[in-house]
Every structure is written in C-alpha cells, then in structure tokens.
C-alpha cells in the first residue's frame, strides 16, 4: 500500500466519506440522470458556503479538545445586530464594512466564550450551552425579534455578485455567488494557520493533552482565547453571508443547526477528544451532509427520513473508525 497512496489511506475517515459521496452520487445519477449536472454542483456549492465556514470554525474547537455549540447564536447575533445597526445609522454602508462589523461583533461574542473557557477554565460544552441561550436571549429581548426583509441595499447588492453564472444546454440555470470566495479564503487562511504556524501546532498540541502543552511552554490561556475569538469571527462572517444570501435578517434562523455542523466535522474524521482533524475531512463531511439534505429525494427516499439518514451517517461515520481503532488495539495487545 506504500507508494501511490498515503499511509492508512484506506482506513481514513476522509476515504470513507468520499466513497459514500461517490456511491450516493452514482445511485442518484442512476435514478435521475439530470442529477449529474452543473446545476446540481452549483446548488451544492452554494448550500455549502455558510455550513462550510461554520464547520471550519467548529473543527478548530474540536482539534483543541473542546466543543462549541454557541457559534450559531454568535452568527445570528452578529448578523442581526449588524443589520439593525446599519439600517438605523448608515443604510448606505458599503458591504465590506458591513461584513467587517459583523466579523468584529462575532469576535467580541467569541471573546466572552474565551473568558469563561480559557480564564475561568470551565468545561467548554457547558459554557457554550450557557452562552448559546444568553446570546440568543439577549438578541431576541433587547435587539429585536422581527424578521427584517428590507436589508441595507449593499447587502442585497452583495447577494447578486456572482463568480460565475450561466444557463446549461438543457435550459436550467446555474450560478456561483461571490460568497463562495469567502469560504475559499477561510479555508486557505485556516489551512495556513494550522499547518504553517506555531499557533496551529499549539492548537493540535492542546488537543493532544492540555497538561503536556503547558509543560512544553505553550501559553494555553492565550491559545484558547485566540481559538474562541477566531471561531466567533468566522461565525460573524458566516452569519452575515447567510443573511445577505437569504435576503432576510431572521433572528430565528441558524440556531438549532449547531449539531449538524458538528456532525459534519466529526464525519470528516475530527475527534471529540481533540488533537485530530483535517480541513479535507471537514469539507468532505460538509459536502456529504449538504448532499443528503438536498438530494435525498432524488435517490428515492422521502424527505421525512432525512433525520434518520443523517443520524445513521453520524453513527456509521464515527462508529466504523472507532471500531477499527478498537480492533487494532486488540491486535496490538
């Protein structure tokens, strides 16, 4: 197996998920030949933008050995607060500034998580469960609970900016919005961060063992704080993109999606105990979840079975590697 394929290629989660995606696409193409088209691809890519950015954020937390369930609330809060602020004070604000504002607000909310987790050393699940309801409760109580469909003009303008658009020979329409570039940028930035900086190596080290990381001189407090601020910023970005693309600032959206995002990340091979996780795996996981959410019906499974399908995917996608690891451990003993 050495040579062409990297070590452990056939037992990795990435391979497993890629095979499932391939299999799913084959079945879908057989049952509906139209499935294999640029329209489907652009639909899937478009649906992956927000989920993808959030998944990269969730992956970072998982690698560091924590778990964050509050990022959807951060995303929605940053988006909604930015929209209401813009509408009230500077409706003509250009979209890069609107995005920057949302990212900063996200980072600020992330810093609150960081204080509780890094400084007060509370368990990440409990803290983020708490901040999830605090952020959302604050937003709905003090900022507003109305859906705003009259967005600032530049946010609407952003949703019309396209990287590519066109019509296929069959007459169906496809388009890839500019927001996709944001996803690519986030992936590249995070890739660079994780693989080419000391900071990235420290995040992996933290996930391996906090105590060891501390002893080799890593400033655990600062790294953890950075992670949650960075995650908040990514969430702020994802939130504002979500708002722009759905052309509505809906304070009730996104929250409730956090577990499917985490599911996508875990499907891609990141482990809850920390220390493991790759961007390739995460993106494959996102692709699989989006594919299942959007195209289950093409394969002939009614959409009422969607939760069952995603739940089973999580169990299989995490169960098979766990079982393999157990078998390997038994053989080694």
């Amino acid at each position, binding site marked *: 197996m050495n040579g062409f394929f990297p070590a452990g290629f056939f037992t990795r989660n990435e391979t497993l998920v890629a095979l499932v995606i391939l299999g799913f696409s084959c079945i879908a193409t057989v049952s509906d030949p139209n499935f294999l088209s640029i329209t489907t691809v652009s639909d899937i890519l478009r649906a992956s933008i927000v989920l993808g950015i959030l998944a990269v954020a969730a992956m970072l937390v998982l690698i560091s*050995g924590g*778990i964050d369930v509050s990022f959807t609330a951060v995303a929605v809060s940053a988006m909604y607060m930015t929209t209401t602020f813009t509408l009230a004070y500077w409706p003509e604000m250009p979209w890069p500034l609107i995005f920057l504002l949302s990212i900063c607000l996200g980072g600020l909310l992330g810093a609150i998580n960081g204080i*509780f987790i890094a400084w*007060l*050393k*509370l*368990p990440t*699940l*409990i*803290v983020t*469960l*708490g*901040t*999830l*309801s*605090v*952020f*959302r*409760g*604050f*937003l*709905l*109580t003090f900022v507003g*609970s109305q859906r705003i469909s009259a967005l600032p003009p530049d946010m609407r303008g952003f949703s019309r900016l396209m990287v590519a658009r066109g019509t296929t020979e069959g007459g169906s329409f496809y388009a890839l919005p500019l927001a996709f570039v944001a996803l690519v940028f986030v992936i590249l930035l995070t890739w660079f961060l994780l693989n080419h900086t000391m900071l990235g190596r420290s995040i992996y080290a933290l996930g391996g063992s*906090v105590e060891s990381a501390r002893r080799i001189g890593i400033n655990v407090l600062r790294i953890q704080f950075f992670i949650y601020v960075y995650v908040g910023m990514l969430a702020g970005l994802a939130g504002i993109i979500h708002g722009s693309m759905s052309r509505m600032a809906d304070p009730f959206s996104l929250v*409730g999606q956090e*577990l499917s995002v*985490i*599911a996508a990340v*875990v499907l891609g091979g990141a*482990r*809850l*105990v920390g220390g493991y996780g790759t961007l390739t795996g995460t993106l494959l996981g996102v692709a699989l979840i989006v594919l299942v959410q959007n195209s289950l019906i093409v394969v002939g499974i*009614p959409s*009422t*079975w*969607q*939760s*069952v*399908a*995603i*739940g*089973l*995917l*999580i*169990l299989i996608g*995490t*169960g098979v590697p*766990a*079982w393999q*690891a*157990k078998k390997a451990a038994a053989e080694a003993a």
Partner: protein
Amino acid sequence: MTSNRKTSTWRQAPEFRLAIIAVVVFAFMGMLSPERFLSEQNLTSMAFQFPEFAILALAITLVMMTGGIDLSVVGIANLSAVVAALILTEFVGPDLPTQASLLWLGFALGASLLIGAVTGLLNGALVAFLGLPPILATLGAGLVFTGLAIALTGGSAVMGFPEVVAVIGNTQVLGLPTPLLIFILLAMALHLLMTRTAFGIRISMFGTNPLAALYAAVDVKDMLLKVYMLSGLFASVAGMVIMSRANSAKADYGSSYLLLSVLIAVLGGVNPYGGYGRVIGVVFAVLSMQFLSSGLNMLQVSNFARELIWGALLLFVMTTNTTFLNKFRLPLALHKK
C-alpha cells in the same frame, strides 16, 4: 458521599447553596406578586408543569454521573410517545368503553417503556462496545429516533386519544398532581439507586476515575448498558407525561427541554465530568428554575428574556461552583481535561 470528603461540610455542599437559592427565589417571587404567585392555582399549575422536563433532567443526571451525556432523551421521549399514540389511535379511538381502552392504555404504556429501554440499550451499546464518545453516540442516535418519529407520523401531531389518556397528566392523586407524583417516585428511586446500591456506587466510582474502576474489576460494559437503558426508560416516562398533558404526540415536542435538562443537572451540582452528583440537588435546581420561570411569566417577562436568564444562571453557578467556593473540586476537573 459527604462523609468521605473531609474538606466539605453540609453547609459547603452545592446542594445547600441551591436550597437557599430555591427558597430565596420563591420568597422573592412571592413578595413581588403575592396574590398571583402564591395563589393555589399558580402553585398547582407549577406542579403540573415541571415534572416533564424534571424527569428528563433525572435521566441526564444519571448518565452525567458516569462522565457521559445523553443528548437523545428528547428524541426517545418523542419516539416512545409517538408509538404509544399510534397504538392508542389505531386500535382504540376516542369512543371505546373505558375498560377496554384502559387495557389498551396499559399496552401502549408498556410499548412506550419498551421503546425507551431498547433505544437506551442501543445508546449504551454504542458507548460501551463501539467506544463512541457519548456526545456523538447519543447525538446521532437521537437524530435517528427523532427521524423515526417524523417518518412514522409524517411530521404531524397524532391526536384523538380515548379520554383515559388524560389521567396521567391532568389528574390528582391524594391531592398531588399525578405528574408530580411520578417525578417524586422516580427521584426517590434514583436517589436510592445512587446511594444505597452497589450499582450506584460503581457508577460514581467509574465517573470519578474510569481506569481505576476498570482495574477494580467493575464490569464497565454491563454498567454502561444499564445506565443508558435506565436513562432511556426515564425519557420514555417523560414522553408519556408530555403526551398526556398535550393530549397528542409529535416528533418535535419539547425540543427546548434538552438544553433545559442539561442546565438543570449542572445547576443541581452534578459534575459534567462524572463522579459527583446528588438527586436532591437536581430537585432544588428544578424548583428554582420553575419558581423563576413562573414568576418571570407573571411579571410578563418574555420567553426570550427567560432564555437569557437561564443561560446566565448556568454560567454563574458553574463559575461559583468551580472557581470561587469549591476550590477542592477544581483539581479533579483539571485532571479530567
């Protein structure tokens, strides 16, 4: 539990602080609007309201004692309620004579408990045999259970029960609302299980240090299976109470209860890393939450603001429990991380 920890007296125990919080919240709300908060009507309606999520909190408490978490409780509750509801509507209908429908009710309850046990066992098997982290196992399984409930009902509510079904959720026995009675019985059973049986002690031991428990020849797999099965059973009981009170069953009832019951367990002093927790603490936590929630309701504070207050309360209690007051519990938490 308290006798073997030299540094703690009963006054330092988190449960004691919680009892004070419960009393203070009750008194405060009573003073703010005495004629409404202290009215008999409000007190009974509170007693009818809280058992449904309080029972779920007991289920989560049990699992949390092992250092795990059960995110599928609401899914199990709804799946078992949907199955029971389908049995009741398919075979009984609203106009069967009482005796026959009582028989069917018994059958439906049995089926629901069976579903709770089987789904719980499934969770346990995923954790014990496959070695999946509890968060993932119960998250995935919970989605499957909810999905099955959606698939069985097509996503809509199942209605049209015989009248006897309302007995569980809406009547009083010996002056106590039936749901409250069920909760008291389950809480006492769980307390006895945790403190008076070898099984309960093994759970605490495993939660404190899994490796040590393994070396002490605890049959870990068997224990985990039983813990998750019991949690599933509790969840299906909660499902029955919810079904009876709503007089219908649906796949997404009580979706906010998951967060709420985790919150209650943690507020109640259960250590999310396992090993420490007392049922009495959870009871005080439930009471504080219910008093607060009812009182805020009367002061016309919105649901959203209540969400904010619960979250803030969770963070506040966690901070005080681990940082300022109970310094002796911190090393354990750090060690586990």
